């Protein structure tokens, strides 16, 4: 599983990255968590409000910081 956290480096994006890593640890999912700060890559997903979460190439949500529990739900 490939998880990407899209964000241009603001505080919210860092929180989402941390939450995602925790969620992956908690569930023991075999996934790599990447932080994507490159604007053309972010735009390729059609995301206009950061931070956003992409799992295996699919945008799960954008413009919010999801909690660890919420993200765990998306990993299952």
């Amino acid at each position, binding site marked *: 599983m490939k998880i990407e956290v899209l*964000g241009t480096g603001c505080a919210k994006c860092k929180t989402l990255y941390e939450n995602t890593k925790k969620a992956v640890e908690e569930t023991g999912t075999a996934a790599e968590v990447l932080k994507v700060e490159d604007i053309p890559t*972010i*735009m390729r997903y059609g995301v206009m*409000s950061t931070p956003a979460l992409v799992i295996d190439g699919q945008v799960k949500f954008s413009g919010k910081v*999801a909690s660890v529990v919420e993200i765990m739900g998306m990993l299952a």
Partner: protein
Amino acid sequence: MLKALADYLVFGVFGMAPGSRLGEALDFFVYDTMKIFLLLTTIVYVVAVIRSYFSPERTRRILSHKREHVGNVLAALLGIVTPFCSCSAVPLFIGFVESGIPLGVTFSFLVSSPMVNEVALIMLWGLFGWKIALIYIGSGVAVAVVAGMVIGRLRMERHVQDYVWEIKVGSAELLEQTFREKLEYASGYTVGLLKKIWPYVIVGIGLGAFIHGYAPEDLLVRYAGRDNPLAVPMAVLIGVPLYSNAAGIIPVVQALMEKGLPMGTVLAFMMAVTALSLPEAVILKNVLKTRLLCTFFGIVAAAIVVVGYMFNAIL
């Protein structure tokens, strides 16, 4: 009720003397802090639910089929309800221009979104009444529409950073949220926003309290009162580099008005602080070449000065 509680705390529990400078400043601080946070929490939550129906992606879809003029007005209005965080300004800008939204319309949105929003509306309403709140919203939208139209007319597309035009924007198929998810989003948004803005609000209220208790009335009025024709441009010049949001600046605005500064000067100051800032300039430099960035700041500042003069003349 809150006023009584603040009086009780400051003059009763802390034993301050009523009428003393420190006592009055502290009373102002305690009362304003309680009132503003109460207002903010309720309203931000309600508006967050409304906002969950207006994602930037949807706003873009609405705007991409509009011509200029109609587009400018619509963009300025959508700016009020679309959630916006200055850290998303870059992807938002690229997403807009890439989907064929004219540059001027995009700017109308970029001006209105941080300046005119629910926080400004409700706090102005709570502290000064609905007339002032509506005047602020109306003139804010007007500034955004006019500034966007002027920038559109200048045909400055080539002053956007070149790479912007090369980016291919994908179309995210975002799932529509259920109402429950929207409520969850709203609580999250409220907590997140309060966490982000509380230091600004506290500093703002503190500054307001200081002006309330210590700034001598005649001093401010002498330098920035109605008689000084340069007061409005000076207020805007001081306000532009400062960064705060509506919630942080309003307590300061309240104290300045109390000290007898005219409405137009104070509203212009507030607009300059919320619409333009140095951090925003740094972020926008990623997508705008210097010339367009300066034009943008110049036009918006000029429009705000005009609004300030207008209100000083009619109010």
